């Protein structure tokens, strides 16, 4: 009997069909990845397996059988016995997925007691045991910590520990590494791999990241618009995709080993920073976010700034555009020392939702730099905005629309158009594509490249994704703890990293080839033990 058998599953919310006629099986001990872009219905499938749609108004059709339980027919009590005990789920955002007010050990113990009716003491002991099992150091003490006292990776480990508490037959991991840095992501994936080897539990991995899937599972199921596009062994599907969509998906994934055609870089320095330093807070709580950073950007060049969360890259970007004043050091633009913002240095923001005022039409947002410059002729403003909208691949008629009427990628295009409206010489892009699906990502990256060539823009591309940075950058600066630890031409940094940290970063990037993934896993173990 299969561990999971899903037949002709459909899930409807109101009139919207999120999952449409999906069937698959997962054998005991096997691993399956549901891969798809946002809106493909993959997470809905995961929830449906545990019957989490019960009582929410969603209409679920077809049959679901998990670890011998008919989820569709099960009573509330049966479902509760299934959840956590036979099939456990790990969620995407480990911070919000844990109760912020209780100690982690208590939360795990609570779950354990729900299913085992063991004593409080036994439950606590079990919690410490599983925390230890997932690699939390000093687990008896750390089990008394609250979630916010853990780092992101530790929290995800804790969530996995909670899942392990009752020794489930199936682990459902819904985007378990999306919120994590690349090195941490690798650790978590490695952990999942090891656990699966040791406990023999089945794994259902839900992810948008093809690389993550390639690293972790045996079989893959590609979803789009709630339907199956392609399914089969991971080697086959990812190695030789049969469907155009799968191919499109794969080709859009940026490769860390891809070589990029160089830009037309001039010698003219448009942006220069020297000795930049920025502290937050005062006195004993002061934190140095950026420390002694010096860099130059030339006309027509793309400088990639790569680093993990907390490395200070966003702070650096904000200082470069003048949104933040440096504590020490200076930013020179066209050779002139500068304080405050300057329309000639623009920024494209990470979150396409929060970077556009939801209460103003996109045309108005794009027109801001024009009006601020003193343009009063509505006709000319309209004309220029239309031109910019078309330039970034939107329609002039979109002027009157509001941000929520656009998709993420379109919103990012609006953001770019707004930056262009100021006729900038430099655009600092702060994680411009990290919130986007891979296919969209590729389009936006391509657009930036085009614009750069056309307008001779200098770009500073700040990102955590090493592959994307390589794809766009002429030169790369690697940041860690506020400092630039390595800088140089992109190819040199990627192909011959000098700093051990850079090497560690590169080793953590998931590979699309499952066999390569296995090799890299081994290499990571070596690096970690070294």
């Amino acid at each position, binding site marked *: 009997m299969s561990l999971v058998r899903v037949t002709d599953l459909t899930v409807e919310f109101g009139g919207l069909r999120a999952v449409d006629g999906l069937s698959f099986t997962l054998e005991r001990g096997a691993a399956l990845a549901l891969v798809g872009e946002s809106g493909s219905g993959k997470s809905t499938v995961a929830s449906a397996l545990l019957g989490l749609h019960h009582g929410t108004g969603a209409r679920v059709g077809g049959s679901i059988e998990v670890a011998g339980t008919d989820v569709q027919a099960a009573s509330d009590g049966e479902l509760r016995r299934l959840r956590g005990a036979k099939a456990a789920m790990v969620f995407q955002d480990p911070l919000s997925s844990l109760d912020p007010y209780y100690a982690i050990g208590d939360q795990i113990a609570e779950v354990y007691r729900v299913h085992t009716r063991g004593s409080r003491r036994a439950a606590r002991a079990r919690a410490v045991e599983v925390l230890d099992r997932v690699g939390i150091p000093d687990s008896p003490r750390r089990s008394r910590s609250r*979630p916010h006292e853990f780092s*992101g990776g530790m929290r995800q480990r804790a969530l996995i520990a909670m899942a392990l508490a009752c020794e489930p037959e199936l682990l459902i991991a819904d985007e378990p590494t999306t919120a994590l840095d690349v090195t941490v992501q690798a650790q978590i994936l490695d952990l999942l791999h090891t656990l699966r080897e040791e406990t023999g539990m089945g794994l259902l991995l839900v992810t948008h990241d093809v690389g993550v899937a390639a690293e972790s599972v045996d079989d893959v199921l590609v979803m789009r618009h709630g339907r199956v596009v392609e399914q089969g062994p991971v080697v086959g599907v990812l190695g030789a995709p049969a469907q155009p969509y799968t191919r499109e998906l794969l080709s859009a994934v940026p490769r860390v080993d891809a070589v990029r055609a160089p830009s037309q870089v001039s010698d003219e320095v448009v942006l220069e920073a020297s000795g930049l330093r920025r502290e937050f807070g005062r006195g004993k709580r002061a934190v140095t976010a950026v420390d002694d950073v010096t860099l130059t950007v030339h006309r027509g060049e793309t400088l990639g700034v790569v680093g993990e969360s907390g490395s200070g890259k*966003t702070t650096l970007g904000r200082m470069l555009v003048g949104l933040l004043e440096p504590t020490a050091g200076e930013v020179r633009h066209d050779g002139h020392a500068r304080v405050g913002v300057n329309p000639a240095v623009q920024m494209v*923001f990470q979150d396409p*939702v929060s*970077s*556009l005022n*939801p*209460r103003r039409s996109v045309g108005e*947002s794009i027109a801001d730099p024009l009006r601020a410059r003193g343009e009063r002729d509505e006709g000319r403003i309209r004309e220029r905005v239309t031109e910019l909208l078309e330039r970034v691949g939107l329609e002039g008629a979109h002027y009157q629309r509001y941000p929520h009427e656009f998709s993420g990628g379109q919103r990012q295009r609006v953001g770019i158009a707004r930056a262009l409206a100021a006729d900038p010489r430099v655009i600092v892009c702060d994680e411009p594509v990290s919130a986007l699906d891979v296919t969209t990502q590729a389009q936006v990256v391509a657009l930036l490249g085009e614009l750069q060539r056309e307008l001779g823009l200098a770009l500073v591309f700040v990102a955590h994704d090493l592959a994307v940075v390589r794809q766009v950058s002429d030169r790369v600066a690697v940041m860690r703890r506020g400092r630039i630890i390595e800088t140089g031409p992109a190819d040199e940094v990627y192909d011959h990293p000098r700093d051990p940290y850079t090497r560690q970063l590169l080793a953590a990037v998931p590979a699309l080839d499952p066999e390569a993934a296995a090799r890299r896993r081994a290499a990571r173990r070596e690096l970690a033990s070294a």
Partner: protein
Amino acid sequence: MSEALVATQAPEASASGASGARRFWRRLRTQRAATVAAGIVALLVLVALAAPLLTTLEGQDPTTYHPSLIDSARGGVPTGSLGGISGRHWLGVEPQTGRDLFARLVYGARVSLGVAFSATVLQVVIGLVVGVAAALGGGWIDQVLSRITDIFVALPLMIMSLALLAIVPQSFPRPVLVTLVIGLISWGNIAKIVRAQTLTLKGLDYVAAARLSGWGAWRIARRELLPGLAAPVITYASILIPVNISVEAALSFLGIGVKPPTPSWGQMLTAADVWYQAAPQYLLLPAGALFVTVLALTVLGDGVRTALDPRAASRLGVGTGRTRAAVTTSTATSTATSTSTATATAAAKEESE
């Protein structure tokens, strides 16, 4: 909690087509209780506005004495049954004077609602200006304004009212004065909320983008921040209005509210409470009117909050300093207020640097 407030800004990706205002109305309309409450509030406002018309219809006015309808020897209790309810006096007459209660109730609505609404507007305006200025000004401006805000949070409203209402010349119209005193003294909490919210909004990318466009602080405050402040402010205002009605009542109770013969609900309640046994309807009328108003405004406030954003606004809670009881209006305690000085460094911040 700051991140919850940020969520106010996030439009629903699923919402389609309609502009913000239309979306708001549609969402408000889907809540039946809120729709009914909005209807009641509208009706109350209408009654207040149409008070002269309604009393003409009844054929009475709020100030004429009807000594024939009361029993002078028994303290002036109405002679008719049920407090003198009749075709000519729809809700009976007032003990001691025989003035028409219906007329006094509808005219009282004018003062009570008028004072409450306009005092709220005043509080909101001052709170907005001070809160936004503090948050945007930063540095010493923030320090100074925040301290001033603290002072006004700590000043007991009733006590200052007692003094201020005595200082101002009597020729100054009382309802306006009561409004001014409430508005000018108890804006501290709303300023705190606005400041906290502005600080949150200020950190948003679209505000940064507006700065990069080259706009000045004033323009940014007006175009980018104020719309974002609307949700918490409107929600809070819906709480303040009933509180202010109560404050007016409490001022009347202490003898410093609106002056006779102008009726107000608060004044009626004050005069009526001792008549609870001898003429119960005299007390029940203004108390009932007040209850319906507060209930409607509260439900409407909830509805507005939900319509503006189901998640973020719920943070505000009811937050009242139960002014009537607790006489200072102070503690409008949304969590935003009380911890405006305690910065929530939610761990989420680690992730987003």
